[in-house]
């Protein structure tokens, strides 16, 4: 299987008054063609930074000191502005977290959906009927009538369906979903997940699914990457990572509340301590200040220890799976 999206040893720094803030450090993520990969991590671990880097829409104060991002084999960090604009939308598109703010409040749904088809051929009517068909596809009742509606006239769940319809209308090769269900209640969340799965089958795109809800990741994804303070600390098939976690951070996440995997929670379980200062991260293992298994050796950078097949954890003390 070839890769739809490949992130290799990506680092992103933000220029701040306190110095360079290391928002991402040597992050590698591979999303195979047609695969669904999850990224999980608490707020501030660099999820938005990762998405913005993939889209090359980082804020002005960001730099990429190292790393490569390849989309369908093409390095986006080297693409020119024009090529980037082409890639955005056509090859990669995004569903954002908050459907309240990800739609333009003063334009009708129909106008916004017609607008994003500006690259396509066809009359206004043809574009509108394509929009309506997609709205119907994502489960919005009376799709033709809804074209005239404004975002505030729809419920949160409906708005998120519209956002998904817009992303799907572009038929991207890679769809990024940035916590698309965080603002929704549990029933809606299940429906949106189902919808994403179906669309992924139909369009044949790959999905990079960002969430801090472990249960949703377990439900939807094939593989998961666990992020902590800008570092990928563990990665593997969903079942392996959740059932036999290797990194103390992942273990904490799952242990803290075993119900997490089933119940709908808006936040990751809280672990004692706080995120390290990213302008001056601890030497060696990034999790050391909060880790109760830390020993002297943890002051040196931990290797990625292979646990079982494609499952690894970046920890000196991770144990190889017996199973």
């Amino acid at each position, binding site marked *: 299987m070839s890769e739809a999206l490949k992130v290799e040893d990506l680092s992103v720094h933000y220029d701040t008054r306190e110095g360079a803030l290391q928002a991402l450090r040597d992050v590698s993520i591979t999303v195979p063609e047609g695969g669904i990969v999850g990224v999980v991590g608490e707020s501030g671990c660099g999820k938005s930074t990762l998405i913005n880097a993939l*889209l090359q829409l980082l804020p002005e104060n960001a730099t990429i000191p190292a790393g490569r991002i390849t989309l369908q084999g093409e390095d986006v960090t080297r693409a020119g502005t024009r090529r980037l604009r082409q890639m955005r*939308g056509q090859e990669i598109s*995004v569903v954002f977290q908050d459907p309240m703010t*990800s739609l333009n409040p003063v334009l009708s749904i129909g106008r916004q959906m017609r607008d994003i088809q500006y690259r396509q051929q066809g009359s206004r009517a043809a574009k509108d009927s394509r929009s309506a068909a997609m709205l119907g596809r994502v489960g919005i009742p009376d799709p033709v009538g809804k074209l005239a509606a404004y975002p505030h006239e729809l419920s949160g769940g409906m708005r998120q369906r519209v956002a998904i319809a817009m992303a799907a209308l572009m038929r991207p090769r890679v769809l990024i979903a940035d916590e698309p269900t965080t603002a929704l209640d549990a029933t809606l969340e299940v429906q949106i997940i189902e919808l994403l799965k179906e669309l992924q089958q139909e369009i044949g795109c790959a999905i990079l699914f960002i969430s801090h809800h472990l249960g949703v990741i377990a439900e939807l994804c094939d593989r998961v990457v666990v992020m902590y303070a800008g570092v990928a600390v563990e990665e593997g098939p969903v079942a392996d990572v959740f059932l036999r976690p290797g990194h103390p951070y992942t273990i904490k996440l799952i242990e803290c509340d075993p119900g997490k995997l089933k119940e709908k929670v808006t936040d990751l379980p809280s672990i004692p301590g706080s995120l390290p200062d990213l302008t001056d991260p601890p030497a060696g293992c990034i999790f050391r200040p909060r880790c109760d298994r830390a020993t002297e050796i943890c002051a040196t950078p931990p290797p990625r220890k292979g646990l079982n097949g494609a499952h690894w954890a970046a920890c000196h003390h991770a144990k190889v799976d017996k199973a």
Partner: protein
Amino acid sequence: MSAFRHTLMGRLLADPLAVFAMAIIALLVVSALLADVIAPHDPSAMNLADRFASPSATYWMGTDNLGRDTFSRLLQGGRIALYVALTAVSIAGLIGLILGMLAGFGPRWLDNALLFFFDTLRAYPTIILALALAALMPRGLGTVIIVVVITSFAEYGRVVRTQTLSLKNAEFILAERAMGASFARIVFHHILPNVLGPFFILAAMNLPVVITIEAGMSFLGIGVPPGTPSWGATLKDGFDYIRTTPWILLSGGLPLILATLGFTFLGEALRDQLDPRLRKTR
């Protein structure tokens, strides 16, 4: 019919305040356009025998110190007032709109430079700036318009900048960029429709202010050339003869009050109707 109900005009017509406002504005506009036809007398004709005449069937609002018909003069003055207001507000608004969007969406240094510029201009009281410019430029409507433009575009710029800035980091703008939209596309398709609402409200609210500035400058003798009919000039005459013939002042104030009410109410109605979030659901 049902399509019309959802247009801006359709919604305004369903709002009693807006209807009232538009009726007043229509009255002012029509009377200004048809001033020559409606006016019972030549606004410049002096009739020294009928100086300071009280309101009557011949002179509906009486005459002034030179025996000119006040009602006819106010009709002509309305032309000047509306002409100055619409021209000045359009020019100032357009400049403010462009600079405001540039400041809000452009790089940080440009924003800082433009903000400094806006604040410097806004720091001068209008009337002082008007007096200073009037001393430098020939007396006339052109000067009035320039004074208004210079003193007011910064306000539009400020409002548009604030709106643009709050949109710049809005998720839907990021979403648009993530879909590959160009700079121009984002500014014209997404920022502009969002700032137009507050912009038109401000413009409507500013029209009577501009009319008052024209009247004020004419009152001070730095507006229209002497002898030209103007609401401000009529007020000035009324003020000079307030003890003997108070109706000149009263008549001169009436159109100013109507214009202020009309445009202010329209501004408020627009505020309710232009923001789809404030709109009542259909």
